[in-house]
């Protein structure tokens, strides 16, 4: 995509990411030793490698030790759980990232629940999700929090903002809806059973799309001047695209996040921010000196 860098209608992730990472870096510099982030990959899943590299790079940038562990593909569920519990008790482990996918014999949900909420930097434990429902939104799932940060970056006041969320996944749509609601937005959640998504999206000040279907949102679905946050990542013949017809929507919308270069870069920065939130909470809980 051309001109992503100079067209002001593109809501780019890079500046938001930079700001978050630099805030995290100064926190880490001040805090001294904060423990390490542990990334767990179970079995050999090459498609995960690119994400892990991105996380490692961000961790390096903010000065957080990043421990990349690869566990054998035939490891048992019990052994995974035992290792995670040992990390829960290890004060040198600041946070735990469980990379997905995992081998078929591993129950990922039960492992996510085994990660202590104070070390759950991905915000996946049911208790972490519950905290978001209860307006305690500091440790949120990274993609949902990234969407919220990008909306904030537009400068639109959250109170009374009409937000339409297309897609109601557990990791993105629902937590983002709760977080925006906590800030005063009126949120409507649409999905595959919604009678007319366009009827909703056309009245929205902000449209957040997280479905995973290329070309899903066209210009006719957007109110002039709205902000469009595109969380979709779709591999197509034309390369990686989001769920939004970006070029057409850009002519109508006030802001649209590019794919790639929009939500993605912010997501990793949020992971780092979650790590320092985890640090603050572990300190407050008396786990650390």
């Amino acid at each position: 995509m051309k001109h992503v860098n100079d067209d002001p209608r593109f809501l780019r992730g890079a500046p938001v990411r930079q700001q978050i990472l630099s805030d995290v870096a100064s926190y880490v510099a001040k805090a001294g030793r904060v423990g390490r982030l542990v990334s767990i990959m179970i079995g050999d899943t090459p498609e995960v490698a690119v994400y892990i590299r991105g996380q490692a790079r961000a961790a390096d940038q903010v000065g957080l030790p990043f421990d990349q562990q690869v566990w054998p593909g035939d490891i048992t569920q019990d052994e995974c759980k035992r290792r995670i519990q040992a990390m829960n008790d290890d004060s040198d482990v600041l946070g735990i990232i469980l990379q997905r996918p995992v081998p078929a014999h591993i129950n990922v949900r039960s492992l996510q629940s085994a990660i202590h909420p104070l070390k759950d930097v991905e915000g996946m434990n049911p208790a972490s999700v519950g905290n978001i429902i209860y307006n305690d939104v500091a440790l949120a799932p990274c993609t949902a929090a990234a969407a919220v940060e990008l909306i904030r970056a537009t400068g639109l006041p959250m109170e009374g903002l009409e937000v339409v969320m297309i897609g109601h996944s557990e990791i993105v749509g629902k937590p983002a809806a709760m977080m925006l609601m906590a800030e005063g937005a009126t949120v409507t959640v649409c999905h595959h059973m919604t009678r007319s998504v366009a009827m909703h999206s056309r009245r929205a000040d902000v449209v957040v799309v997280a479905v995973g279907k290329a070309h899903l949102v066209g210009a006719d679905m957007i109110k002039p001047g709205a902000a469009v946050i595109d969380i979709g990542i779709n591999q197509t013949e034309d390369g990686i695209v989001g769920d939004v017809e970006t070029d057409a929507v850009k002519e109508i919308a006030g802001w649209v996040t590019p794919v790639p270069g929009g939500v993605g870069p912010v997501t990793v920065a949020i992971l780092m921010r979650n790590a320092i939130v985890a640090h603050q909470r572990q300190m407050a809980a008396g786990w650390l000196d």
Partner: protein
Amino acid sequence: MSAAVIDGKAFAANVRGQIAEHVQRLKDENGITPGLAVILVGEDPASEVYVAAKHKQTVEVGMASFEHKLPADVPEAELFALIDQLNADPTVHGILCQFPVPDHLNERDVVARIDPAKDVDGLSVVNAGLLASGEQGLVSCTPLGCLMLLRDQLGNMSGKEAVVIGRSNLFGKPMGQLLLKENCTVTIAHSRTADLPEVSRRADILVAAVGRAEMVKGDWIKPGATVIDVGITRIPHPDKPGKTKLLGDVDYAEATQVAAAVTPVPGGVGPMTIACLLANTLTACCRAHGLTEPAGLTA
């Protein structure tokens, strides 16, 4: 046009009847009696009335009822020790602490102490998270009661426009999640919503839970909508000096002219709450023993 009245009192009695039958079967076939423990701290008269009502209905459906009354100045450690003991007690399948508790106790900490599998009020963060994650947990009683009424009234809700007014942790948010689970398109509106009447008028299913008497007028309601009124405001009775009267969030007289069905206040959602508490206790008991859960009594 005059709306159908959704009779929560009769429906709740029916739910309790189903629970009683199931409890009898559990006793006969498995030798298990579901048990509900209620903790009351202090002597708040309203709480005592609620606790007495819960006790009465628990016994009526054939469950064991365990009441624990603690003095208002009970130290937190002592309350927690009781909760720990109930968590470990296999004859107790549901535990609830009647709120409000005295100021020296923190409600969220109290709920967090209860084993999520026995948290039959469905108030713990873990149960809130399980609901939001689409996983099996216990759903708080009032939203569950509204869901049961809606299912009975509408059957399949897939694709319907649902608007919940009120974003409270205890009601609005779980209600929104439950309606999403039914495949409704859900808007949670609240005090900061720019145009509340306009948003409300979109709704095929309108659920009001803000606690402002008769706020929802007839022209806020889409013709043919189903309206669930969760609000309760007590006002001095207009005709009987010294008496009080309960009002909902919906202007009932106006709503009945527009809606297809409306819950009255009182007698609509209110009676469902204890019925759902018993339903949750039964569900928790079945899960604890690895038995099939009763149909239609959970989300």
